[in-house]
């Protein structure tokens, strides 16, 4: 295809991406370097019967006017990045020098909002992703044995948790695990503890969110693996059987290697999707115990006072995280591509 034709074909799509994905990233960078204007102070002299005294007060009108005229605020450099709400370099340094033990250091770190969000987001991403792959594979192997007539309905039901709106899916489960809901009540009965509540303890909240994540994403892995299973070569399996391979060995040495590229694909998609976990935190009202990076950005933007600079700084740090996460994939694809060209 000629360069010029290519350009005209891709233009609308490219323009949309530049204006609404690339430009916002620039806007995020600019916003993160600014901070809201300080309040304008006026000094007035109050003279009473006992002499005059100077009084400093906030000139609300002038402040509002200044903020109205320059909504971006004043230039702040990298200040926002290092404040307590973000990288908190000063606090981290103090925590390190005053640490009693390494555990104590991490505990102090965990009390800082950004580090807490990073801890949850990374745990969520790296626990959910492998479990989704394992569960998806298990379901695919199981469904593959089901009589053909029942396969359609089974796949239909399996797709539901994935297709449902994340916020709705998490609300549905949230109502069930409520202390007065069916699962919550059953757990209280099982553990013989009428006070048991999955919402109260941070650990249980994390586990609940992770279980939700697996429930939501396992169907995706299942469908991909199931499609892959249809193309496993019968000859190879036959040969393995003749060589005396047990059922488990057939799976381990024939089926799993065949599915390996698919597992990598699922891992890539899951890493991207789990890293931006957001709706479940809201659905499960888990913001206190398990805020994710996306959630703290949302929180900055949603409050009565919108903290643009804070949201922007967290956003940029999140984008850096995404790029680090994707780096191995990008490098690998780049190498593959070069090999193909040469």
């Amino acid at each position, binding site marked *: *295809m*000629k360069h010029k034709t*290519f350009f005209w*074909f*891709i233009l*609308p*799509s490219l323009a*949309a991406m530049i*204006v*609404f*994905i690339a*430009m*916002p*990233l620039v*806007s*995020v960078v600019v916003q993160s370097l600014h901070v809201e204007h300080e309040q304008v102070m006026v000094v007035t002299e109050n003279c009473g019967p006992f002499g005059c005294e100077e009084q400093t007060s906030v000139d609300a009108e002038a402040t509002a006017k200044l903020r109205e005229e320059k*909504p*971006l605020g004043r230039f702040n450099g990298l200040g926002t990045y290092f404040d307590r709400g973000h990288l908190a370099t000063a606090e981290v340094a103090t925590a390190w020098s005053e640490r009693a033990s390494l555990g104590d250091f991490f505990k102090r770190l965990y009390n800082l909002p950004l580090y807490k969000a990073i801890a949850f987001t990374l745990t969520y991403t790296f626990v959910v992703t492998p479990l989704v792959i394992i569960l998806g594979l298990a*379901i695919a192997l*199981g*469904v593959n*044995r*089901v009589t053909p007539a029942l396969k*359609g309905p*089974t796949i239909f*039901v*399996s797709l*539901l*948790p994935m*297709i*449902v*709106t*994340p*916020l709705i*899916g998490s*609300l*549905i*489960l949230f*109502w*069930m695990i*409520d202390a007065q*809901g*069916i699962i919550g009540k059953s757990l209280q009965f099982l553990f013989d503890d009428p006070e048991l509540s999955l919402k109260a303890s941070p650990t249980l909240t994390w586990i609940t969110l992770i279980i939700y994540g697996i*429930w939501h994403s396992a169907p995706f892995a299942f469908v991909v693996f199931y499609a*892959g299973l249809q193309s496993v070569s019968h000859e190879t*399996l036959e040969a393995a*059987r003749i060589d005396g391979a047990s*059922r488990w060995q057939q799976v381990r040495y024939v089926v799993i290697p065949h599915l390996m*590229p698919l597992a990598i694909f699922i891992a890539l998609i899951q890493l*991207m999707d789990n890293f*931006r976990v*957001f709706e479940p935190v809201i659905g499960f009202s888990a913001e206190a115990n398990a805020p994710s*990076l*996306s959630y703290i*950005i949302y929180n900055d*933007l*949603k409050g009565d006072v919108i903290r643009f600079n804070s*949201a922007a700084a967290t956003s940029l740090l999140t984008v850096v995280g995404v790029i680090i*996460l994707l780096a191995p994939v*990008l490098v690998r694809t780049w190498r593959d591509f070069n090999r193909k060209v040469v």
Partner: protein
Amino acid sequence: MSSATGKTPRGLFLLSTGFVLLWIVIASFPFLWTLWGSFKVQGDFFSKADWRYALWGTRTIVETGGPFTGAGYHGAWVQEEFWRAALNTGIVVVFTVIISLTLGTLGGYALARSGYRYAFWLLMIALVFRAMPHITLVSGYLLPFFEWNLWGHLPTSIIVLVAINQPFTLWMLHSFFLNIPKDLDESAKVDGCTQFQAFRHVIIPVMWPGVITTGLFSFLLAYNDFAVTSMLLSEQNRTMVPAIAGFLGSTFEEGNVMFAVAAVVSATVPLFLLVLFFQRQIVSGLTAGAVKG
């Protein structure tokens, strides 16, 4: 594979069937339970006394006289005007899908037919864009949109959703177009068509399966979105998902949680129908990306 394997030992058969059954229950029970519970009063769905109340509707009978009640639905759709949100969702979803597909087919076709290095780079950049958490982009929009008075309107959200959707749409359609033989449009060009005429007369008639599948996923993205619609739409322009989140914030009154339950069930119905009618396309769409790698 299974039929050719020969006879399955009984133990393995039971284990595998049991596991699949367990998965079916885990996947479907929450939906059935919520559907059933949405016709009860709050005292049953969140029962302080006994969870079985929800099965028989004990409190529902006491409070309304019958074992089922549509009070939640009435409250959500009529009293809280959920129909507005449903209408807004309809508008946003239809336009997002149509615009996404128009831009995506042109771009995806170009990417599939260009062998140059920049096409590869564009796909890589699209992959990085696809990984961006949507809320990070929203934090970039908010201030300019406030300034230029673009905030709160449906068209703004539609265009933003289209743009966020583009990387995925491009990737998917790109791989579908790779599957359409190059000879098809090459021969049209030999016959004197321009590239666009070749696309118009030769490719468009055969591209529909791929476009429909991609459209389904665009639909899901727009329909399921919370980050963009909750931040960029004003209260009267809200779509269903942020409206449901709104119910939760304001409904600590007894019985009003059931509005949210009813709204959740209502919003799930279209998704349910979608899977019912397009199961094959959804499955093929999920695997298309994987097969291409």
